């Protein structure tokens, strides 16, 4: 339904090789994400999901192909040009403990984007941070805590706060709930759904868990050995899988 809206992200023929024989990596990856849409990227370990996330975030250089963000080719963008665009596409990692400087308080973690992108005057930092913490369901009192002094769910909320501070158009979510237990998982996904409804942010959602994808994503692509083997609306793909990789993933979901 959102297919025809202007794509926020367009990936064309993306390729990336690792190692000498070129077996690992990505080949001919082609997809787009529309404004306000959630696209899930699913696949088993080693299928290339995280590599894809890193390429989209411009954390790794691709070998071939192109990445367009809001219509602009960012494949070769560097330096100041890339820096100016960075606030508009953000990322949330699987393990928030590894994504934060362990010695930086929540205040410092959240001040960085404000300072780097000049989003607020210094005197307003605490107000902006406090409001953002509350927006992600945390008390503003947590501002002095270190990452280790937070629970897994709280840490992931701080990671989401850091991502939304810059009011991005796209957030890449790399397995954001797979390290969390069931009750916290639902709270975090609901927070992300609420934020999307409010701000129209698009998500590229990397996951190996089809149950979560079922509840969260509009469309999905299935990856196997660095290629896209299937793509479509989430419900249709799950109801009528066309590729073996998808069938294996479906069969792996525990059933009550």
């Amino acid at each position, binding site marked *: 339904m959102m297919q025809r809206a202007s794509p926020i992200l367009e990936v064309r023929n993306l390729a990336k090789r690792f190692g000498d024989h070129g077996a690992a990596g990505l080949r001919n990856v082609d997809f787009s994400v529309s404004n306000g849409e959630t696209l899930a990227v699913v696949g088993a*370990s080693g299928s290339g999901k995280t590599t894809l996330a890193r390429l989209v975030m411009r954390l790794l250089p691709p070998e071939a192909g192109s990445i367009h963000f809001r219509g602009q080719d960012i494949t070769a963008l560097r330096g100041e040009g890339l820096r100016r665009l960075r606030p508009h596409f953000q990322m949330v990692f699987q393990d928030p403990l590894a994504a934060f400087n362990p010695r930086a308080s929540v205040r410092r973690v959240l001040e960085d984007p404000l300072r780097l992108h000049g989003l607020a005057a210094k005197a307003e930092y605490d107000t902006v941070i406090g409001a953002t913490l509350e927006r992600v369901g945390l008390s503003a009192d947590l501002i002095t805590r270190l990452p280790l002094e937070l629970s897994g769910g709280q840490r992931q909320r701080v990671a989401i706060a850091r991502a939304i501070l810059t009011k991005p158009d796209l957030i890449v979510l790399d397995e954001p709930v797979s390290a969390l237990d069931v*009750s*916290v998982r*639902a709270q975090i996904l609901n927070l992300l759904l609420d934020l999307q409804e409010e701000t129209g942010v698009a998500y590229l959602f990397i996951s190996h868990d089809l149950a979560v994808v*079922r509840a969260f994503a509009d469309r999905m692509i299935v990856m196997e050995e660095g290629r896209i083997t299937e793509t479509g609306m989430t419900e249709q793909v*799950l109801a009528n899988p066309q590729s073996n990789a998808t069938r294996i*993933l479906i069969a*792996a979901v525990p059933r009550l």
Partner: protein
Amino acid sequence: MSEPYLRIRNLTVDYGGTAALQDVSLQLAKGGRLALIGESGSGKSTLAMAIAGLLPRRARSGGTIEFPALPRQPSLGKDIGVLFQDPSGSLDPVMTIGDQIAEVVMTHRGLSWISARLMAAELLDRVHIPKPLSRLNSYPHEFSGGQKQRIALAAALAGNPSLLIADEPTSALDTVVQRHIVNLLDELVRDNGLTLLFVTHDIALASERADTIGVLYKGKLVECGPTAGVLGEPEHAYTKALIATHISLDMPRRKRLAEINADGLQ
């Protein structure tokens, strides 16, 4: 009724002031498969570690844990094998996998080093590591996460235990690898007549693999019984909430996911 394999009466554990387990009593039959479920901090791992005899030194406990089916107090490694969540944490990174498994075999089965190494290869074969003889001298980092968990399982079984305790053995793995590991667990438990206790936060996984489910909530065993009964007629509000959070692939998508509302539970 015959003697149970494991009998726990009024077990209480606290870590200096905070009670991790309160008054837990349960029985497990020989060859039974018990799943302990609950969220982080519910006490499920504490209960598993108390049974394994692996509580940290600062833990104080009361109550009794008995193994009526065993002729003596169980010894870890020999009577009880333990599989942890993170295989990288349970395998020694600077020791070959063959040596790690053979060490357990030698200690608990009294075999010579050479026979123990052969037994290690046999164990690796049983957990489906291909070409096991040629992998004895490999190090843990040469294997994927799922393979490492298989190797840790081989080490846990090396003493020929009668009880296997698996503490979230697949939580760090993707769903496809998880399925392979739990299938393997099932197969080994059945083939060797093992009693299995596994800890998970995934109620669907528990329902597929266990004949008994124990639900822990805030340190209390709020429900424990045959799987069909616990799922079909849950008594405790937390169990009901946990069942409601399950996402089925054929359910129509809803606007939001079901959450567990802590205020509604006692």
